């Protein structure tokens, strides 16, 4: 939980992501990414008759929600990961590892990483 805990809305929250060069994890490293964290503003109420009929009289409750979601992702490069196995990769010629994990963009306190509003921002 970040400093925004307890306040309605949808916020960027830093998390550590372990990134790797390939599925085998030939090279690994840690990267600070962002999660979108907040509160889902929602209500639940009796379903309309048309909703009831369409669901075979199973859905007698309707829930409408506006949750905190990732609205945009940015690919970032992460160079110079530590090698896990010496000589791994293309015939042992591996000198540097590089990969592009997907990082989210949602609102924060300024900086170039903030490009837009998160989907479902509340409060």
């Amino acid at each position, binding site marked *: 939980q970040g400093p925004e805990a307890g306040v309605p809305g949808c916020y960027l929250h830093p998390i550590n992501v372990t990134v*790797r060069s390939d599925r085998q994890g030939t090279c690994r490293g840690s990267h600070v990414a962002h999660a979108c964290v907040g509160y889902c503003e929602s209500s639940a109420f009796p379903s309309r008759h048309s909703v009831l009929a369409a669901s075979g009289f199973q859905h007698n409750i309707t829930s409408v929600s506006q949750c905190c979601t990732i609205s945009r*992702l940015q690919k970032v490069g992460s160079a110079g990961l530590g090698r896990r196995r010496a000589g791994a990769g293309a015939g042992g010629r591996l000198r540097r590892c590089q990969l592009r994990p997907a990082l989210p963009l949602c609102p924060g306190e300024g900086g170039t990483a903030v490009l837009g509003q998160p989907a479902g921002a509340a409060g």
Partner: protein
Amino acid sequence: FNTSKGDLRRFVGCAVREFTFLAKKPGCKGLRITTDACWGRCETWEKPILDPPYIEAHHRVCTYNETKQVTVKLPSCAPGVDPFYTYPMAIRCDCGACSTATTECESV
């Protein structure tokens, strides 16, 4: 549950709240009903992960935890039409996953 504007802007959690709707079905006139339903703000997050589907999501919504079924009689129903209308009234509300077995889950 205090429904003053200032309190609602800051409220975090899930609570029973008064709700008014028009109960109607084909062959009957509608009946305006005020009952207890649920409203609130529940924990939600999404984070990027390296493998498909690349986003891990955790969404909880404010929904009915305990209900009572209430039956009312709709006015002016056509002959042969069942005039009774049953709807759930909230006794207790909680944050939880939206169950598609019992609930029409909509997001905006």
